[in-house]
Structures are given as C-alpha cells and as structure tokens.
C-alpha cells in the first residue's frame, strides 16, 4: 500500500516536472542577435543601439514608430515598433527590442531602454 502511494506521488511529480519544462520552452525568449533571430523565426530580444544616421518615422494614424538599429555584432536592422517613440529613445546608450523578424523587418512589440541611472552615487556629482 505504502509503496504504491510513493510510486503514485513520484509519477505525479514527474509529469508535473515535464509539463513545467515544456511550458518553460514556450514562454522563454532568448537574448540574441539579428542573425540568429532570422534563423529562429520566433520571438526573441535583441540588445543594440540606435543607428541615428538613418531617419526615424512615426506614423500617427497607425501608431507605428520606425527606426534603424545595430545589434552587438554591428548588424543593421530596420525596426518597426508598434507604439510611439519612447521618450528616452534618443539618449539611451542602448536598448532591448522584443519581437520577431518578418521578411526584412524586425517587428518589435516592446522597447526597453536602459537609462544611465542616477540612482547609484558618483562622488564627482557633489564636488562641484
């Protein structure tokens, strides 16, 4: 009786674990570059910088902001973001775009800008 119970519990835990791992695979998004993103053709996130020598465009009626960015491997990519230009876009040293590659365009659903944080103290700042 007791043995049976443990087998039952063990099997239950195993099934749970397997489902968990499977759902992990579905819900995780990799940090990667544009080249890999093209191969994977699934949702990924890419870190990079704004290629400011190219023009940007915001289409009011469609609420789409378009720009060029470079990933860490210096690959240039045209990015179409669904939403307005984030306000810290021009000053962010780098940012992360979340999305996938469609033909030649990276369609981003989210732009996460990393800001030069003022939160950590720098001794220079109070010596002036």
């Amino acid at each position, binding site marked *: 009786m007791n043995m049976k119970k443990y087998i039952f519990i063990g099997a239950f835990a195993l099934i749970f674990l397997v489902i968990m791992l499977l759902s992990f695979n579905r819900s995780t998004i990799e940090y990667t570059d544009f080249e890999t993103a093209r191969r994977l053709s699934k949702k990924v996130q890419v870190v990079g910088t704004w290629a400011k020598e190219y023009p940007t465009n915001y289409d009011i009626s469609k609420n789409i902001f378009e720009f060029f960015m470079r990933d860490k491997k210096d690959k240039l990519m045209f990015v179409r973001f669904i939403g*307005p230009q984030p*306000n810290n876009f021009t000053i962010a040293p780098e940012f992360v775009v979340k999305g996938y590659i469609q033909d030649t365009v990276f369609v981003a659903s989210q732009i996460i800008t990393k800001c030069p944080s003022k939160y950590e103290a720098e001794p220079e700042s109070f010596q002036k």
Partner: protein
Amino acid sequence: MFGKIIIYLASLFWLLTFLFYLFLEKSNKESFRKFANISFFGGITAIFLASLFLLFNILSHNFTLTYVWSYSSRSLPFLLLLSSFYAGQEGSFLLWALWMSFVGFLLYWYLKKNNISTFPLSFFAFTLFFITLILIFKTPFADLWESFPDGNIPKDFVPPDGRGLNPILENYWIAIHPPILFLGYSLLTVPFVLTLASIVQRNFENYYRAITFWSLLGAGILGLGIMLGGFWAYETLGWGGFWGWDPVENSSLVPWIFVVILVHTLLLHKFKGGYIRTNFVFSWLAFLGVLYASYLTRSGVLSDTSVHSFVDPGKIVNVLLLVFLGVYIIFPLIIFLLRFKSFERKKEDIKLPSRQFFTLLGIVTLVVSSIVIIVGTSLPIIQNFIGAKKVALEPSFYNQWMLPIAVLMLLFNGLSLYFNWKESDFKFVFRSASFDLILSILFSTVFLFVSNYNILFSFLFFTGIFTFLVNVKKLFKKIVKKNFRVGALVSHLGIVLVIVGALVSGGFEKTQTIHLTEGKKSTAFDYVFELIRKEQIEQDKTDREKYRFYVKMSKEQSNSIIKPIVYWSSFNNFEQPYFEPDIKTYLTKDIYLAPKSVMFNDFFSPVSLKKGNSSPAPWSKEDSIYFVSYDMSSMHLASTQNNFMFGLALKYLINGKIYNDTVYSILNMKMNSFSPVWKLVPTKDFAIGFTKFQPAENLEESTVELSFGQEMLIADVTVKPFIILVWIGVILTVFGFIIALNKYKKIQNVYQ
C-alpha cells in the same frame, strides 16, 4: 558615530537575547531570565534609538551622511522625508529591524499574557541578530568621506542639498505600501519561531492557538501590503495593471501563499489532530520565503529582469544574505530531523468525500502554484548557477499555469463546504449542490458565448460562480443563526472575487492609442477625447516641470474630464518625462488613460541664429526673437558626467511687448545628442525648443537652431471590465483574516 555604535550595541543585545533564552530553556535557571529580558529590551531600545537617530538626520537634512544625501533633499515634504527612511537598501534593513522589534515586543507581551514559554523569543532574537549584522556592513550611518574613500572628500564636507527621491516614488503610496509589506514580513517570523520552539519542546498543543493567531495576522497584513503595491502600480505608476508577474511581486506572493497554506494545515490539526510536522514545514517555508524575497530583491540578481530597480549591495551583504538563508535552512532542518520521530503521524484513513479531503486538495493546488512561481522567479539565478544562456520568462508562463490551478482551487473550496470534516452522505450533498451547480452552469454557458468560446476562461468562471454561491449561502445561514465566525467564508469570497476580477479585467481588456493636441479630437472605443488645456502644477518646486492635462472624454451626452500628468524632473536632468495615468471608474469598468510619449509637431520652419542677432518670428513678421547670450549657469543641474544643461537667453518681441526667457537643451557628450527642453512661447499655444547647435571656432561664431511646434501627448486608453471586483475582493480577503483573528485573540479558552 553614534548611529554605528548603537547598531553594534543592538547586534550584541540580540545575540545575548538569543543565547540567554536558550540557556534558560536548557538549564531552567531562573537567573537567566533576568539577563534575557534585559538584553531583549536593550535590543528593542537600541533599534528604536537607531531609527530615531536616522529619522532625526533625515529631518534635519544632515547631508554628511551618505544615506541622507542619497535619498532625501530639502524640497521633500514631511511625508516623503519619512519615506526616505526606507527608500534605500540600508534604511529598508533598518525598517525591517524596527518592525521586527515592534513585533517582538508584541510577541513578548502576548506570550506573557497567555502564560506561554518565552523560549520562542530566542529564535526571534537570532533573526534580529542577523538583520543587525547586515546593518553593520550596510550601514545608513556612513559619512560621505567613508563611502567614497577615493573622492578626497574633507571630513566636515556638507553638500548643499541631497539628491532626493526618485520622482516616481514621490507619492503618498510610498508612505503606505512598503511599511505594511515589511510589517507583514516581520509578522511571518512569529509562526516560524513558535513552531520551531514547539517541536524543540515537543509540545505543539501549548503553542497551537498562538501559531494560528500570528499566522492569521501575518497573512492578513502581508496580503494587504502586497495588494496595496498592486493598487499603487495601477493607480499612479501607470504600469497598466495591478499584477505583472514581476519577480519582485512574485517574491512577496510566495511567503503569503505559504502562510495561507499554514492557516489551512493548522485547521486540519484543529479538527483532526496531527499534522504537526506539516505545520512546521509550512511555517518554516513562509519564513524562508521572506528571506528569499529579501535576497532576490536586494542582491541585484534581478536587476536585468525586474521593473523594480535594484542595485548590487556589494559582496559582503550578498554573502551575508546567503549565509542567513543557509543557516535558516540547515539548523531548522537538523532540529526537524532530530524531532521527526517525536511527532508520529496519526494513522487514520481520510474518508474520500470529506471536508478534510478537499482541504488537502486545496493545499495541493496552493503548493503547486508556489512551486510554479518559485521556479519562474528563480530562473535568472538558476541560469547564473548552471551557466546557461540567459533567457527571459514571459508573464504568459504564469498565466498558463495559474489559470487551471485557480479553477481547481476554487472548485475544491466550493466542494469542501458541502461536507463535514469526517464524512458526509453523498446523496444529501448532491441534493443541496444541484441548485448551485445548475445556476453556475447557466451563467458560465452565457459567459462561454460572451467570451467567444474561451473554454478555460469559462471553466474558471464556472467554478468562480459556484464557489461564490456556496460561500454566500453558507455565510447567510451562519449570520441568520447569529454565528459570526465567518472569517474563512469572507476570505474565500474575497479570493473568488480577486481571481474572477483578474480574469475578466485582464483577459478582456482592450487598448487603443490616442493622440492629444490642443484643438484636435481623437477617438477610442466610441469615446471622443479632446485636450482642453494643460496646467502647470507644483510651481513652487524648482526641481520639476509638472503639467496636468485636462482631457475631455465624451460619449453621446455624457462628458467627463480625465487628468493624466506629465512631468520632467531634475532627477534625470529633464531628459525624459515621467507619466501618471488617470482613471475613470465606473461600476462595470475602468477607463484607464496612460500617457506613453510626448512628441512635438513642427509648426513652422526652424530659425537659425548667432549670439547677438535677431530674426523675425516665423509665426508673424511683426514679432521677432533676439538671441541675447548663452547661459551656462544651469550646467550644474545636470549631475551625471556626460550631461550638460545648455541654456540660451532670449528676448521676444510679441505684439509690441518684450518677454525675456531662457530655453535649455541637454547636451550629452557621450552620445553627442541634443535633447531640447520644450517651453511655451510667451502668449502662444506652441512651444519653442533649442534643437541644434553647430559649433564654430568660438561661441560667438557658433549657430543655434530654434524649432517651434505643438506638443502632442500619445496615450493608451484601456478599458478594463469589472476591475472593481479585484479591489472588493482584496478588502474582503483581508477582512476575513481579521474576523478569524478575533477567535484566537484570547488563549484561555483553548480547550473549549
């Protein structure tokens, strides 16, 4: 110096308290009691004094202290100055110690009053010893010259002003949410030290009611603290919802789930006896959850994946926190194993359809949900540990798991109420359940059509309605009989409302984007939005430019004004705006307007000027703009190395009148970027911006470019159906804990 000494003293006192209460228990020599009590109250007094001292330094603007300089400033109002106390890591540890001392005092009083052994205070003091140890290494009482040894700072240096709070925290919620959360965390220590003491002493009965009392209190307060955070995020931070499965939110939810499980396993003990080891394990896990949360949020491991910003506290504290966690895993485990045989499990068969059976199933769903959350939240740490490639986890992971878990959880709660603790007659139960079942099936079928055949949602809706009905019926029956022991029913009703509210408001929310400029209309969801005017608020504060936008929202005959806020702050050198949403709350839905971006539409062609020259204004040949001089006097406002506030003093001639003004731009040397700080042209409804700087040999020859345009606010309008259910649910849940508490207030009626 005083602050540091008092922390050292506190640490010593708490160590002594731990040892003396331990000796007292071991030797039973009453002489130890005096020493134990003296060091206990010594520890409380020391923590209290340290807190008072820090508060005094904050209120008197003593900026020689790094902590005070980092998190407060002269311009902060009183309430926010109080919040500076715990705005940084050092202070939040002190707040934790302060609440622990307060809870310790209450616990002492409670144990004395109910004639329970003071032995648990030993373990309680040990926790405080650890927190004060962290405070020694991460002290809020360090002077600037100590914090920055390479900065060549003279010892008597006092900066003129502090850096102030992060503006998104400048809100009354910061005075409410963190203290309640920390009180909740501190309260969860008590059930753990009580159960630990009970298994060391092999006497669970002696503590059972006390454990229940403190678990209920902790669950109520922590639950309130968590949801107030959610409300803050929803109402002022503009995160769009009250819960985002962010690691920091998750790490506060896990200890709450464990303490809620504990409340249920205590109930099993009450009605069935036994379950002592189970109770120990869950009170232990609840406490470990608190430690784990403080490790996750403070160690910097989450800085990439969480919206809450945290900074690495430095190696020593990181290691200390891990040691803290390790000690509380290993030692209780040893004690547990030593006592394992002392609490033999009661041999009895669980009758299949009984309340006990369904309560157990409910506990299983809670355990599964906690595992899902722990695994998901710990992912960055696991990846770090095994050196795997870093991946981010989408909130959808939690939603996928929690939905079916919630369906079962609610179902088990509803079913459990039909049965007695031992065994019930199935036929009778079926007869009384059929009405509820039919009604819920009816409702959820309607829901199935409304939700476009979303089967999982309909299942949840079905169990939600069912459990709601069962609880309401039971509640009604009890109240009619003047039986007011209804805490559990009220809490469960609350949970049903929270879950159903979250499902409906989150699952069926819709978002559209609107563009607001003066004089133009924008439509979303049959509502017409129109920017009426904007008003600068808090003008007495020089560190910010804050505007309230008055947006008219109209549909057919009804009009209302919705007022989001956009502001710029010196905190980030006016680089990017901060936003606050505004919400119109109706009975059946919230309309949530969250600003996303501020843009400028160019109205006229830009004007290029050299210093000392003037140009006709682009809007009228009669008016003109004169570029008087460069203004570098605000350079200091930019406090990071690469940014400079670059000003131009201008003179306008408008309709024959002269206006003086200065426009600024932020020059980022590193990025070589130029961000104008837009400002309204006097008497006009459009703004001027200093958009370009073309350097020449010297400033006299350099050219600046001025642009003119109108501000456009881009905002998301989201309709959230029935989100009010969530808030009502939270209130009911917390209220239920308080009702239940009432029963355990007095310990005298233990065996009645």
